[in-house]
């Protein structure tokens, strides 16, 4: 039997009506992606690219202008799809008078977890996200990072097959971020599919199996991170601190100069290697280190989304 993909969109388009004179604004333009089972899928894009709109369409918070989306083969308009999904909003808001254990009990009941199983499951999930000791502390007394973790716990409570996470590491300290990233990897290893949008690309790069980059509602890159990053590598040269005049001369050769301790790092296209070396030689500047590097996901993102 052919397994349905956890998440599929087919020419998904959303237009917002602005008024008679202004017409309509296209927030999402013919998005067609497929998220395979058991992967971490990074959904990237600058602010206003249409990431949140896509998530809202996937969760049936709004209806598409055209196109369709499905979760496990079921159209997203079917409420049953949301039994298979765990969702973490960008900034999780809960009633502030509730305690984490109460939030989880409420969401477990809404997710259809059996009544007698709820206390056990809620405790286990709180333990998993590392906030078991705050189970009975009202949310109003929790920090932003801890509230974010309650949000992650809430997304996990229904034991979903697909997790849709909007900025899961925002508001977390470095330890919390590391913990969450590891949690995502563990969940993927357990067979769950994770669809996450994030701006912290350095973290995503290490854990994502697939990425999609949106720019003004349009898909500009889609596939494995390796395929999204530019094939071309660039050269990194470490030299001594540079004079402002040298800066100018090197900038003509499209060299990116970054200070590094008491030295300078020059980053440029490998086609310019000969000319850059000529300049350095002409100025009698030392070369401490030289190597080639491939574009990082963050650099690819900046290039694609610019």
């Amino acid at each position, binding site marked *: 039997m052919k397994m349905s993909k956890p998440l599929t969109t087919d020419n998904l388009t959303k237009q917002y009506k602005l008024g008679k004179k202004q017409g309509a604004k296209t927030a999402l333009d013919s998005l067609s992606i497929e998220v395979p089972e058991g992967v971490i899928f990074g959904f990237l894009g600058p602010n206003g690219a249409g990431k949140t709109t896509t998530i*809202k369409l996937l*969760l*049936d*918070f*709004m*209806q598409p202008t055209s196109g369709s989306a499905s979760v496990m083969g079921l159209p997203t*308009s079917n*409420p*049953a*799809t*949301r*039994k298979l*999904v*765990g*969702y973490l*909003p960008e*900034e*999780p*808001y*809960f*009633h502030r*008078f*509730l305690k984490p254990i109460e939030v989880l009990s*409420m*969401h477990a*009941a*809404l*997710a*259809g977890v059996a009544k007698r199983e709820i206390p056990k499951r809620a405790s286990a999930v709180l333990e998993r996200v590392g906030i078991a000791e705050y189970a009975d502390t009202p949310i109003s007394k929790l920090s932003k990072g801890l509230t974010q973790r309650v*949000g992650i716990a*809430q997304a996990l409570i*229904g034991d979903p097959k697909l997790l*849709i996470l909007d900025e899961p590491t925002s508001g977390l300290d470095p330890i919390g971020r590391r913990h969450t990233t590891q949690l995502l990897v563990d969940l993927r290893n357990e067979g769950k599919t994770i669809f996450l949008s994030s701006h912290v690309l350095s973290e995503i790069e290490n854990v994502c199996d697939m990425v999609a980059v949106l720019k003004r509602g349009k898909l500009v890159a889609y596939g494995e991170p390796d395929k999204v990053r530019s094939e071309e590598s660039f050269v990194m040269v470490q030299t001594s601190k540079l004079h402002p005049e040298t800066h100018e001369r090197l900038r003509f050769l499209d060299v990116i100069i970054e200070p590094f301790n008491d030295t300078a790092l020059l980053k440029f296209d490998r086609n310019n290697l000969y000319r850059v070396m000529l300049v350095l030689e002409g100025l009698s500047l030392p070369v401490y280190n030289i190597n080639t590097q491939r574009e990082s996901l963050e650099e690819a993102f900046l290039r694609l989304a610019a």
Partner: protein
Amino acid sequence: MRDQVLGVGSWVLVGKGIFDMRKIWVVAKMSLLENSRKQVFHVLCLVMLALIASSMLLSIFTEGVRLKILKDICMTSILFGGSALAIALGSMGIPNDVESRTIYPIFARPISRSQYITGKFLGTMLTVFLGVLAMTIVFAALIASFNGGFDPYLLLAVAFTLLEVCIVAAIATTISVFASPAVTAAFTFMIYICGTIKIGYFGGMIERTADGISKSLFGVIYHILPNLECFNLKASLVHHDPVPASYLAQVAVYGLCYSAFVLFIGMVKFGRREV
């Protein structure tokens, strides 16, 4: 459209899976917890309880008149308190959830918008019921202190007042689906007043209006407005006049039908709304 069907289904197919009482109850419980923490709930309850308790000071009247005035004031207080609570809480529930974005994690669950609205309405009614219960207990204690016994007419009058408040809460919940809390409260209050004077005032006005567009328009508004005065059994409580059971049954059915219908409209409207 799916939600419209679920909405109707919720009312029709009881126990067939569509009418999932567990999810509705979770939303209602959350709404009750939230409402019972609101300042407006505490203030209104305290003011009404103080008003009812102050009826003790009616010592200037003779024994019989005093009890009648006491009943009159207390029933008016319960109706006023209940309606004010229904308007205040009903108009805030859904817009607050949308504004504070607490609605997102809830809607990401397998819950239909119809179930959510039903839950919010139930939560509002449960809160109002708590307030009315407190007022009724004080009222019953006052009556008992005057004539030394329990007045069964009191229960009937309060039950029908609750039914009237139920309509007011349903109207507030439905309007709040597409309007801000302030607009909802103002509009619901207007409907409440117009519904109370519907037969006595609007009926006569329409009769006197010359045939034409105005008369047709008034006619449409007249038949849309709820018939709230029929829930007022204050006179029966004060004078112990019996009310025909068949009349009470029809009024009760009407109260439930009108509330359900108004909520149904809200469900249809909310089903299409983007959050």
